[in-house]
Structure formats: C-alpha cells, structure tokens
C-alpha cells in the first residue's frame, strides 16, 4: 500500500515536471507567434490614441524588423525595401491616415528552411476607419520571412499572396 502511494506521488511529481517544462520552455515557434501578437498589438490603434503613444508604437514596430525589410504586394504593385531607420517614420505616416485600426492574424504555419530563418504563412486581417470616417477591411494571405538575430526573431520580408487572380 505504501509502495503504491509512493509510486503515485512520484508519478504525479514527474507529470507536473513535464507539464512545467512545456509550460515554461518557449520554442522558436512560440517566439515567432509572440512576434506576430506583438505586431498586431503595436499596429492596432484606438480612437483616442495620443501622438506620443503613436510615436512609441511606430518605434516598437521598427524594432520588430530586421535591418532591411522587404515588402511585396503584387496586387497593389508594391515592391519596396525599407531600411530599419526609415520604418518608424513610414509606419507613423501610414497609421496617421486612420482613426482606428484592428489587426488579427490567423492560421499561422511556420517552416524553418535553414538555421536562423523562418518562413511563415498566415492570414492577416485589418479592419480600420479612415480619418474621413470611411471603413476599410482588408484580408490577405501573407508570406513572411523572419531572421533570428541575436536570439530575437525579426521580420525581414512580407509578401501578399494573390488568392484571386483577376
């Protein structure tokens, strides 16, 4: 009886340790998903956002990016490379056009083609209100490349995928 009780206690402790390990251990996939959560959070805008808060958010978004950041949206004829120092100003100008922004990411799948590189496919949804009052809703399939630089996963490229080809 004592033996059984001891075995049960040891089993429970082992089980708790395994759970704790998976709970506390953050894999590269978890870190990358967290990056997208941060991107969504920093891109979002409340109607009462102050200018200082906007500047801080733009800076935080630029800190999520690698030294150079390639943007390709063939359906909008956009293909441009941004340097990290320029991103903050671009983000600030882009967000200023909207009075409210909400961003969500869905169906994130992550592939690691080589060490320190992650290719991510996901669906991105943006709902926003222009300062003129008009509502905008855009949904795109996105392919993103992230690079691991000094233990941090940073956005290096983003590409919009054409689901429907007119």
């Amino acid at each position: 009886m004592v033996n059984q009780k001891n075995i049960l206690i040891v089993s429970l402790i082992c089980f708790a340790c395994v759970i704790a390990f998976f709970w506390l251990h953050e894999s590269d996939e978890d870190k990358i998903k967290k990056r997208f959560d941060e991107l969504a959070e920093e891109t979002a805008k409340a109607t009462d956002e102050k200018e200082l808060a906007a500047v801080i958010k733009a800076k935080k978004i630029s800190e999520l990016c690698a030294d150079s950041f390639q943007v390709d949206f063939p359906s909008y004829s956009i293909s441009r490379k941004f340097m990290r120092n320029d991103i903050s100003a671009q983000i600030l100008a882009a967000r200023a056009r909207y009075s409210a922004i909400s961003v969500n990411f869905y169906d994130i799948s992550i592939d690691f083609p080589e060490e320190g590189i992650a290719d991510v496919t996901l669906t991105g949804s943006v709902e926003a209100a222009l300062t003129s009052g008009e509502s905008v809703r855009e949904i795109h399939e996105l392919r993103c490349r992230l690079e691991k630089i000094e233990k941090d996963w940073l956005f290096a490229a983003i590409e919009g995928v054409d689901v429907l080809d007119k």
Partner: protein
Amino acid sequence: MPEMNAAIRNFLLPEINRNFLIRVALVAVLAYIFFKYLLIPFRVSGYSMAPTYNNGDVNFCWTLRFMFSPPERFDAVTVRYAGTRVMLLKRVIAIEGETLEFRKGRLFINGKEVEEPHIKGQYNWELPPRTVKPHHVYVAGDNRHVPMETHDFGQTDLNRVIGAPVW
C-alpha cells in the same frame, strides 16, 4: 413507471464512472474532428454574396462536396486563404479552359451570353476576355452592384476550394 423515472434520471444525471468519461471524451474528439475538418461552421461577414448570403448569416462548409467531382458553374464555394479560419464565399462563374468576359454587366462564356439566375438587377461591370487556367475556377460574388474595383473576384487554384455551404 418507477423504471422509467429511473431511466430518465439516469439519462439526465448519469453516474460519473469510467465508462461515462470515456464516452464523453469520445464524443468530444469526434465532434472536434467533424466540425474542424468536415463540416466547418462559419459566419458570413460582408455583402459580397448578397442577397443569396447576407452579412451575419450562419452556415456550414461541407468539405467533402467536391471530393469526387470538381465544382461546376454557379456552385457556391468557399475559398481558403492560409487556412480555414477565414475563407471567401463566392460563386463559380467559369471553369478551367473557358474564356469569360463581362460586357455591360452581362456574363459571356466562350463568346456566348450566359444567364445568371442568382443575380438580381442590372449592373455595369466591364471585363475584357480572359481564359481560366488549368486546375482553376473563376469565382465572383453575387452582389455586382458594388464597383468592380472593390469586389474580390478572379480565378483561383482548385486546391484552395475547401468545400461548399450546406444551404
């Protein structure tokens, strides 16, 4: 009568034993698989398929609908993005190899006008002829009263067609 009461009581308040827990777990797993992969519930957001499907409508996507035969013209289909959390609900207007065009809001397939029974009213879309690529279908929404530039339509790979709405 007492047996019936006992049976009802047992059905509504079953004894929580090992068999009961196994049954609950089995039902939960089967329901998850069924509604995640076979009959995906979705809510319509937007007016692209109005008046057939309206904003806020609830429906289910039956993923086995095109398992044995590809979609045909005028089938309503769901088209996936990166996954099935967000999908497009559209109608097939042309299939692979066909050439389609819009002239003054009228659909022409291979140069012949085709009636679209699900379209209500007149619209003025103009689209030069284009041929649907192999293993693709051309889809558009039923609501053609919005400007063509703001409407999501075009050809898509059959691999992106997940299924069809149940009703």
